[in-house]
């Protein structure tokens, strides 16, 4: 299994951390970011979310993000998993794991990774609400 991937099913945070840890005994700090589906957004009750992506470009951009983070920060390993398709309220959406010798670099890398992911990876979110379905970018 690659260190970055997009999948429809849920992921196990514990399993993913275990995989990252198995890469190196030098790891001394691991920071994770978990994005989850909340039930309220911009004044509306959300029933569920749907994530659509551009398959080839998404994989390419996720791999580039991982490489860039490994070059930019003093970290040992990075893992990024993003779900696609329908996601119910409360479920996991995205997991980022940054592992380093020391915690400071892992924290910095994790923040950078989620911010960049939002900017450059072609994934779109649709909110399913009582009043209909809305692509998030349509409401700036």
């Amino acid at each position, binding site marked *: 299994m690659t260190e970055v991937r997009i999948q429809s099913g849920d992921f196990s945070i514990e399993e993913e951390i275990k995989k990252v840890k198995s890469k190196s005994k030098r790891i001394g700090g691991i920071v994770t970011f978990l994005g989850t589906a909340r039930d309220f957004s911009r004044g509306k009750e959300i029933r569920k979310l749907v994530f659509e992506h551009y398959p080839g*470009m998404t994989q390419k*951009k996720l791999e580039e993000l991982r490489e860039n983070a490994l070059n930019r920060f003093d970290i040992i390993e990075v893992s990024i998993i993003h779900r696609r398709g329908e996601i119910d309220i409360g479920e996991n959406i995205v997991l980022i794991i940054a592992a380093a010798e020391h915690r400071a670099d892992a924290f910095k890398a994790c923040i950078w990774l989620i911010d960049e992911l939002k900017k450059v990876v*072609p*994934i779109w979110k649709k909110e399913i609400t009582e009043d209909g379905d809305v692509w998030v*970018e349509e409401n700036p």
Partner: protein
Amino acid sequence: MVQVKFFAGFKEKLGRGKIEIDIEHEVPLAGFIQKLKNEIPEIEELIEKGNAIIAVDQEVGSDDTTVKSNSEVAIFPPVSGGYGGQDKYD
């Protein structure tokens, strides 16, 4: 044959996820988009008003980008959280 793909809200507005456009030679992206507008006039409004992102061979295009006869072009709305879009996991 150039494969042109549409995603998210653009796919729904156009009622299709892709179209094939035939070009004989490598052309500047702007010229290619003009040809695409001739095929699908609704594209014009999406590009003008929808802050469309245009990617060629899975990289976001610029003024220097060209389209080859076997390129893959994708036209999509801003990625939520980036390219001027809304935050996705605040």
